[in-house]
């Protein structure tokens, strides 16, 4: 990148800078006219100069000029206006000039602002573009949070500066020079004094500011390091807690903040010191004028008028001077920031822009063998991982790489995937160096999965399809305002040197997944998920999440059918007692009292969880049904029992998971509440306390908790209260609750709850598992399996995929690599988090899936256990960075070499 900020700005905004300068110069004309006008108004119509005779008129807007050689030329003789008319006309001109000046200012500021923002956008894009082209080794040394701060915060001030970069010095310099000249004209000696002081300012102040720049650079570096550390703490929070090092982190952060404070405080001290000196110098000049000028006047060598004029003119000098010096400070400041950032982003061996150029067309298959030629790989410390290895993988060949712990097979796989660059030698596809092939070829025709998986914080679907998003394949048509907006977006992108790819286009390369479009992609997705044994996990996720009814209309449409099918099935298998269904007129003994009262899913915060008992409408319903005091007594009983059982346990005791009524933290509060309320009549208890106690009863399930608190009478009262609740439901609560309706899908509830439409009995330990497999069967029978899988694919995987287990993440990575249907599939210990039995199964599935429909990709698999090698055409064994054996499974077994040793 361009190391000098000024040149960077000039290269990209030359035309605009010149244009805005012209506009500013043009704006000077009305600006100076508006200075002259008040004098005209006061002297003319107000004081009556030129209107001495009653009824006298003067010409207005008379245009005449004295041209050289030609003499006076009159273009327009003007309107003849009397005194009042002239006043009105001149005042209107004044108003007009005010408007014109304002508009100029508006235009100039907007233009400068836009110029700055465009440049900021360009710089940020350039930086990220470079990040995308950094060589792999760079990422081992840099903290992601530091890169993010550089792109986001450190270049931010540049935007504000760019508009003024060239304009400000020209303007302010001009103003200062004019004032200086004026003083000179009045009196040379006084002018010289002013000049000397200005020179001192110009020389001394920037010199003093040098220290400010040094401090500024330190400030930037320490702040960047701080954000790097903060990022590290967040990413490594597990390690911090596991090792009880949070106080070490606190100390480290405090020390860093202390350093930053010191730097910033030094900075302030210097800044105000410099400011003080600058102001002092500026004020020194009038002092000298008064003293020396006064002396001269007394001596009769200078007349008073001149002195006053000089002092008056000097008033205009410090302003521009100060601003000019400030501008210079800004310039140096942003220059430092810019250089700092550019230094960080200037690295050797940056990937050439052409390698990752956008390619819409399918690059065609890789038909040549993939080979390592004298390949050596080293780790960051320079230790050799792979030492001059030469080998070749032919198309359609399946190769197992077996490695001793120091073998280096992983390094070879990483080299094939371009993730690490060779120390010497090369990886080649046919005769071409792999690193010189466009990523459009290797990224589409090869795929790679390893044990080290990175997932983006998005849905499972997005992560799975990520490997297919190479290029915007469709052009989206926009209409109306969207079209204008789109045109504007693209136009602005180009002006800032950003690419004009449409992110809303369909980027998914369906063809490479063997599909023709969105409608049949799902088949391919399902096959790869089945192959890596991830479908079941995703189905489980689907069952546990609530479906987006705008997408998954089939589920909602067939819910009645589903529920009926489940009932029939349970009946057939003699499992009817496993699920107690919700029935509008009956109490469900396996559900909580709260669920029985509400008989619906809370869709908003008003009636959810703890807010329910405190809701005024709900409380009034309980009162009318005569339930409030009963439930209160029940709550008191539960509180007593819970406290008796749990009060002695430490708050982190695992038994608290069994206590549904309150959390461990709430126990002390309930203990005091119980003390206070004991023996107090219900009527004397405050509303808030009542709600606290009644809430406890809502979590009660008789068969589970077995306190013996639920009677038949209470159950029928609760069902009556339920009906009453819905009869008079106030309109503001209509959206807060979705009533259970056997014929309706409940959007706020999970898919599982919707299908069950009841509660699983608490007394059957294996009921949840059995019911789940029955539900899957039914969904499959009704053709809704795909729909549920689709619901599961909506699951957000969390930051870095942390909401999935490491096994699930690895499976997803393999599925993603498979989905692309590559010519070369490189798998680097891809399933290390799974047990051997599952690994074997996935291995078999993957080999089969990869060769579906007559495809025959080459597969290079770094296996975790030598026994897995049996499934491959060819086995290559690595030891100490060397290729030691190469052959088929049988020949290697016969050789009695390392492979056989590893197997035993």
């Amino acid at each position, binding site marked *: 990148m361009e190391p000098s900020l000024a040149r960077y700005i000039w290269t990209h905004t030359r035309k605009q800078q010149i244009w805005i300068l012209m506009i500013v110069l043009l704006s000077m004309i009305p600006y100076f006219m508006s200075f002259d006008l008040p004098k005209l108004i006061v002297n003319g119509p107000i004081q009556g100069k030129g209107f001495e005779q009653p009824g006298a008129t003067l010409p207005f807007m008379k245009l005449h000029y004295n041209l050289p050689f030609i003499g006076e030329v009159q273009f327009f003789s003007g309107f003849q206006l009397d005194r009042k008319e002239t006043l009105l006309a001149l005042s209107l001109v004044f108003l007009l000039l005010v408007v014109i000046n304002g508009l100029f200012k508006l235009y100039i500021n907007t233009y400068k602002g836009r110029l700055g923002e465009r440049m900021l956008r360009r710089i940020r894009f350039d930086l990220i573009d470079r990040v995308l082209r950094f060589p792999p080794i760079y990422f081992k040394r840099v903290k992601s949070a530091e890169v993010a701060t550089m792109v986001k915060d450190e270049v931010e001030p540049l935007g504000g500066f760019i508009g003024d970069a060239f304009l400000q010095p020209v303007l302010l310099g001009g103003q200062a020079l004019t004032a200086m000249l004026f003083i000179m004209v009045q009196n040379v000696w006084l002018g010289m004094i002013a000049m000397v002081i200005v020179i001192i300012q110009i020389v001394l102040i920037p010199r003093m500011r040098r220290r400010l720049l040094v401090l500024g650079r330190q400030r930037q570096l320490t702040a960047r390091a701080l954000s790097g550390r903060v990022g590290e703490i967040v990413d490594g929070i597990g390690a911090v807690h596991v090792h009880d090092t949070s106080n070490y982190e606190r100390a480290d952060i405090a020390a860093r903040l202390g350093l930053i404070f010191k730097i910033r405080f030094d900075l302030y001290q210097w800044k105000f010191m410099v400011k003080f000196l600058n102001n002092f110098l500026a004020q020194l000049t009038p002092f000298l004028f008064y003293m020396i000028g006064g002396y001269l006047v007394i001596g009769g060598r200078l007349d008073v008028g001149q002195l006053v004029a000089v002092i008056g003119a000097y008033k205009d000098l410090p302003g521009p001077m100060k601003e000019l010096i400030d501008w210079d400070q800004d310039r140096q400041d942003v220059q430092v920031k810019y250089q700092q950032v550019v230094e960080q982003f200037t690295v050797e061996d940056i990937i050439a822009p052409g390698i990752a150029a956008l390619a819409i067309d399918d690059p065609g298959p890789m038909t040549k063998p993939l080979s390592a030629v004298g390949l050596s790989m080293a780790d960051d410390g320079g230790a050799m991982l792979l030492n001059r290895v030469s080998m070749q993988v032919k198309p359609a060949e399946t190769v197992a790489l077996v490695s001793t712990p120091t073998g280096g097979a992983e390094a070879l796989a990483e080299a094939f995937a371009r993730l690490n660059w060779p120390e010497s030698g090369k990886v080649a596809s046919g005769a071409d160096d792999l690193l010189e092939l466009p990523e459009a070829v290797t990224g589409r025709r090869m795929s790679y999965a390893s044990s080290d998986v990175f997932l983006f914080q998005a849905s499972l679907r997005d992560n799975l399809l990520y490997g297919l998003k190479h290029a915007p394949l469709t052009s989206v048509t926009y209409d109306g305002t969207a079209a204008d907006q789109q045109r504007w977006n693209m136009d602005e992108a180009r002006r800032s040197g950003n690419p004009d790819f449409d992110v809303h286009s369909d980027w998914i390369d369906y063809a490479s997944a063997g599909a023709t479009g969105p409608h049949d992609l799902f088949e391919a997705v399902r096959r790869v998920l089945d192959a890596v044994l991830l479908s079941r996990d995703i189905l489980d996720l689907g069952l546990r999440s609530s479906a987006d009814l705008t997408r998954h209309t089939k589920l909602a449409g067939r819910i009645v059918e589903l529920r009926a099918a489940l009932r029939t099935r349970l009946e057939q298998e003699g499992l009817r007692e496993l699920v107690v269904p919700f029935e509008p007129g009956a109490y469900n003994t396996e559900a909580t009292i709260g669920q029985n009262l509400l008989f619906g899913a809370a869709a908003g915060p008003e009636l959810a969880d703890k807010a329910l008992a405190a809701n005024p409408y709900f409380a009034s319903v309980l009162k009318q049904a005569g339930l409030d005091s009963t439930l209160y007594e029940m709550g008191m009983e539960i509180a007593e029992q819970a406290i*008796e*059982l*749990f009060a002695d346990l430490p708050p982190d*005791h*695992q*038994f608290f998971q*069994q206590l549904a009524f309150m959390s461990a933290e709430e126990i002390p509060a309930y203990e005091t509440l119980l003390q206070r309320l004991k023996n107090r009549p219900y009527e004397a208890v405050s509303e808030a306390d009542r709600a606290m106690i009644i809430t406890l009863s809502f979590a009660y399930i008789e*068969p*589970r*908790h*077995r*306190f*013996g608190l639920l009677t038949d009478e209470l159950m029928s009262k609760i069902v009556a209260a339920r009906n009453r609740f819905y009869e008079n439901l106030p309109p503001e609560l209509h959206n807060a609750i979705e009533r259970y309706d056997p014929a309706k899908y409940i959007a706020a509830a999970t898919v599982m709850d919707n299908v069950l439409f009841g509660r699983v009995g*608490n*007394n*059957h*330990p294996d009921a949840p598992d059995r019911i789940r497999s029955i539900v899957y069967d039914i969904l499959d029978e009704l053709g809704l399996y795909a729909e549920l899988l689709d619901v599961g694919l909506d699951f957000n995987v969390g930051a870095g995929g942390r909401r999935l287990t490491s096994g699930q993440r690895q499976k997803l990575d393999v599925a993603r690599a498979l989905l692309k249907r590559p010519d070369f599939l490189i798998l680097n210990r891809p399933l290390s988090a799974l047990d051997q039995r599952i690994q074997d199964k996935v291995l078999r599935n993957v080999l089969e899936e990869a060769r579906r429909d007559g495809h025959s990709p080459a597969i290079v698999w770094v296996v975790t256990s030598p026994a897995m090698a049996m499934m491959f055409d060819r086995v290559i064994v690595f030891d100490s960075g060397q290729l030691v054996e190469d052959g088929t499974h049988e020949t290697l077994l016969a050789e009695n070499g390392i492979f056989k040793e590893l197997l035993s």
Partner: protein
Amino acid sequence: MLLKDEVGMLQRVPLFSGIEPAKLKLLAFTSDRVNYSAGQILFRQGDEADAAYVILSGRADILVDSDSGPIKVAELLPNSIVGEIAILCNSSRTATVSAASDLEALRIRKDHFLRLMKEFPEMTIEILRVLADRLSHTTADLIDARSA
């Protein structure tokens, strides 16, 4: 059957007889009440041991796999505990337990059981006593068998 009745039942189990009722109530509360009908399996031989069971009502058979199919080796009556050995020594189930009639049981999860032992030494000592007792019986049986 209510929680307090279960406590009464637990007190009659020799293993828990020395433990104060309040702790037994906690044990009962944190355990799951499970129902089986005749023929249903509580756990199978070879399964991972995750819980112990106290029979509250009904009967269960202890079956051991053999070449000629499962052999019934013992019968469980109310107030007996089963499956506690396997959760103590982290081994898998040494026998299958199946309900011989409608059966009500209390399922005590492994981690809860171990936690209780850690917290209430009197319970641990009681368990030790029972185990030692069984061991001496087994030793006596072994001597009988050898000398026979």
